[in-house]
């Protein structure tokens, strides 16, 4: 069959018409006509993107039974989608069309009309050359499973489960410890927002337990998770009984594995683990919520306490965001229980990013807590007395003694985050937290479609922000994984030709999405089209030329470039 290529030049009002010689373009392009193999129809139009222009194009495609379409107009950024949609209304496959930009690339930047015209002709010829090497591509539809796996039953995982579970959607909530709730169940109070206690948390925990669409697995870990958005196969294993396994399928996975505190023993200058009555913030929270008391090892209430902020901040290279606030909370606990106590908070910066935080700080200060900004700090013991030796901002060295010392160790990603990352093929960033798909625009997604990260597993976060994250993942999954609605994966993906692949597996190592798997029996690599994003890494790295990116094949690019530089 012969190619019948329609070439349509847009005047774009005066924008293109005044700056290039369209008549000349049409004449030269028409001269490329080589019937019967290659028939070229070249025409112009005043404004192809207008409704009238689009109807004209659709009519031309059908009437002339075009096999290929080339449009010479503006930037693909403006109207690629517009013209692909025109094709979709006709019998012409939208991947057999090519938009050539003669406005931004020629008319608008080249003052000399002849020169602009020449360049436009060259570009259009390149477009014609490319389009004949293009192949029709069709969208595929995949069935999807609406159910979701949530890993980690802290406040983030709990809220996510509640947002997601429903009549048509089951949630599997997996927790490695024996109970759900995470760190927040260890606190007596949740601050800075006054008047809250753990009732709301308990209500949420209960709601999870009573929800018949949420299946909770405690003392359980994920052993295997393979698949892609809409279709992951999951195997769970019981931590104490390796034999006890559960397997099921889900459409999405939410990682909510939370945080741990850095071990202050690793930073010897704080004396933790060596000197008596030095505690971490979490130890104080725990004993306080269990016994309602904060006491020295001797069983006596402390007469003085020093609260040291930012323990491990420098080492970690980031601020943990919640410790300033919870240290105020701990100071308030102490003041409530031991009104006569002398409290000094040693801080580096006060990080108060929420709109209510500053008030809470002022309130704490007004309760009689002293605040000292330090440059350097160390804890020393001398004759059973503990001293905090510090350098102030003006360089002066001072020291005070305190009976109790409370440290705010940096928040770090939960132990085992690395294993989870490997299991799901997602990345950790330079701070060790899970890496988001985009720092600004896509913070709860990851580089793998259908795998999400929420709560303090992504960044140190307070409870409010962890909950917002959980609701955000609700927003993502409820809009993108709808029961009964099929998923349409990207069509311009890579493919590997069986015949050329030598099985070297270079491509597996460069694919950031884990889209390529190796078929041991046939000794070839295969692209999973549901996962591939068409980035082309494998294409560039394959030593055998076996990998191709659909719609960006070497032949297509070569033919285009060949004409463009002729």
């Amino acid at each position, binding site marked *: 069959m012969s190619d019948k290529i329609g070439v349509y030049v847009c005047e774009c009002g005066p924008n293109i018409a005044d700056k290039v010689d369209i008549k000349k373009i049409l004449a030269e392009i028409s001269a490329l006509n080589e019937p019967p193999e290659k028939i070229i129809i070249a025409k112009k139009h005043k404004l192809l993107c207008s409704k009238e222009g689009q109807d004209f194009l659709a009519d031309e495609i059908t009437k002339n039974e075009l096999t290929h379409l080339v449009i010479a107009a503006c930037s693909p950024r403006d109207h690629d989608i517009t013209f692909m949609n025109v094709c979709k209304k006709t019998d012409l496959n939208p991947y057999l069309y090519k938009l050539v930009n003669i406005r931004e690339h020629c008319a608008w930047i080249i003052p000399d009309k002849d020169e602009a015209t020449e360049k436009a002709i060259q570009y259009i010829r390149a477009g014609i050359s490319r389009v004949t090497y293009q192949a029709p591509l069709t969208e595929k539809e995949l069935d999807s499973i609406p159910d979701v796996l949530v890993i980690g039953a802290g406040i983030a995982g709990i809220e996510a489960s509640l947002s997601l579970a429903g009549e048509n959607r089951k949630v599997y909530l997996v927790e490695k410890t024996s109970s759900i709730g995470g760190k927040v169940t260890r606190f007596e109070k949740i601050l800075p927002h006054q008047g809250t206690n753990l009732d709301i948390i308990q209500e949420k925990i209960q709601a999870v337990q009573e929800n018949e669409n949420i299946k909770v697995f405690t003392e359980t870990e994920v052993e295997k998770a393979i698949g892609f958005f809409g279709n992951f196969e999951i195997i769970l294993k019981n931590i104490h009984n390796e034999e006890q396994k559960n397997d099921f399928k889900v459409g999405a996975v939410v990682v909510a594995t939370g945080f741990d505190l850095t071990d202050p023993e690793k930073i010897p200058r704080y004396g933790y683990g060596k000197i008596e009555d030095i505690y971490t913030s979490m130890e104080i929270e725990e004993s306080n919520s269990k016994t309602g008391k904060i006491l020295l090892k001797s069983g006596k209430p402390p007469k003085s306490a020093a609260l040291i902020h930012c323990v491990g901040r420098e080492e970690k290279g980031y601020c943990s*965001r919640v410790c300033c606030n919870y240290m105020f909370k701990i100071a308030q606990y102490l003041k409530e229980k031991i009104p006569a106590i002398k409290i000094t908070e040693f801080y580096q910066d006060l990080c108060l990013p929420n709109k209510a935080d500053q008030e809470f700080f002022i309130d704490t200060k007004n309760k009689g807590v002293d605040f000292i900004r330090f440059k350097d700090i160390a804890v020393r013991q001398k004759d059973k007395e503990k001293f905090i030796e510090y350098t102030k901002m003006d360089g002066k060295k001072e020291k005070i003694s305190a009976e109790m010392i409370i440290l705010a160790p940096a928040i770090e990603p939960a132990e085992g985050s690395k294993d989870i990352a490997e299991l799901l093929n997602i990345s950790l960033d330079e701070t060790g937290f899970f890496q988001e798909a985009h720092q600004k625009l896509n913070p709860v997604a990851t580089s793998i479609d259908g795998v999400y990260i929420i709560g303090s597993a992504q960044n140190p976060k307070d409870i409010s*922000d962890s909950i917002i994250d959980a609701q955000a993942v609700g927003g*993502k999954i*409820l809009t993108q994984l709808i029961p009964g609605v099929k998923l349409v994966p990207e069509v311009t993906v890579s493919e590997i030709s069986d015949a050329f692949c030598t099985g070297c597996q270079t491509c597996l190592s460069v694919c950031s999405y884990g889209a390529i798997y190796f078929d041991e029996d046939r000794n070839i690599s295969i692209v999973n089209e549901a996962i591939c994003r068409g980035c082309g890494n494998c294409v560039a790295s394959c030593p055998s030329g076996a990998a191709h990116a659909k719609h960006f094949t070497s032949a297509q690019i070569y033919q285009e470039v060949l004409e463009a530089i002729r």
Partner: protein
Amino acid sequence: MNNSDILVIGAGVAGIEASLLLADTGKKVYLVEKASLTGGNVIKYEDVFSNMECSTCMIAPKQQEVLQSENIELLTLSTVEKVQGEIGDFTVTINKKARYVSLIDCIGCGMCYEPCPVSLKNEFEQNLSEKKAIYVPCPGSLPNVPAIDPEHCLQLNGKKTCNACVEACAFGAINLSDKDEKIEIKVGAIIVASGFDIIDPAGFPQYGYGKYPNVYTAMEAERLYASNGPTEGEITLRKGDAPPKSIAIIQCVGREQQGYCSSVCCMYSLKLAHYLKHKLPDAKIYNFHSDWCMPGKYYQKFHQDVKEEGVDFIYSPVAKIKVEGNDKSLSIEYYNGKNEKEKLSADMVILSLAMMQGKDTASLSKLLGIEQDTKGFFMNQAIQLGSVDTSKPGIFLAGCAEGPKDIQGSITQAEAAVGKVMSYLS
């Protein structure tokens, strides 16, 4: 009666994110934006901290998607006038101002600006440049279609007869008899994403804004640095021929008065310092700060990087800083870490001003029937446990309308609001 259409108020990053997610499900979204363009404040910045990604490149694809989405009806130059009803069944009246230029016929060629005889201050450019009565706020505005300011257009305000723009337009896109419209829509839920404003520097005379020409707000500095801004990215002074040789950035202006930390100004001040070091490598840059607020995991690293670029950081209580001088040079009096009074001089001063509730917050809260908090922002219902709910079921908050936050936080909240809408309406 359960209506599943949604109204989103404000087309900043938060409103855009919410609209796109909802539109993906086939729901109809009315996106109501007061300005003539989408993108909110973020499009004013050249780059965003801390990855220093080009701001336009980052959000233009999303703005474009809004324009191309079949399910989003974008109403620019529009505000909400009346809201009645309740969750699942709100009736909303929208006041849509005439644009005088057709969003369908205009191709954004810009031929109509030149002939317009009227010049006026361009507020989008922080009044650092002028625009015509027919204008787009800046190159790259989306939708890339001008609007006519009816108060200043000679034909429309009746001062003279003029038809210059209409004649210049080859596409017949301008219609001077366009009229304001009242549109009534029915929706099941509302997302309020009306953003923030910056506190007025006139309230802080000690820093000399308005008195000395070379004192700038951070937003002005953003536009000065922007390649699509009034100077095309050249750092120039209001008074003076040469670029500044020394620049002082003063953080936390207005924090004490507002009673909260704005949570992004430390970071954007670092960004400004980094910008300036980049364009004016030999300039001396001073940064007056109080405690650093750097709550993101990548933020402290950025602080470290900027420090290494050679910016002078001075910890000093902002309340005791004073800016004095004249048209040409400025002197900054401050207290150093030893609580001693010191002075230094600078050619340019930049004030990092507190973020505050958007100008329309009070009126919107009244007509939506939702509460404001003690700081003036919209109040979220269960602040103790993180929430995008307002005091009224079916109305949700997203972005800086709820309180100061960075882009990441605004986006997350928008997605959370969508999560809420989806669980209510599906």
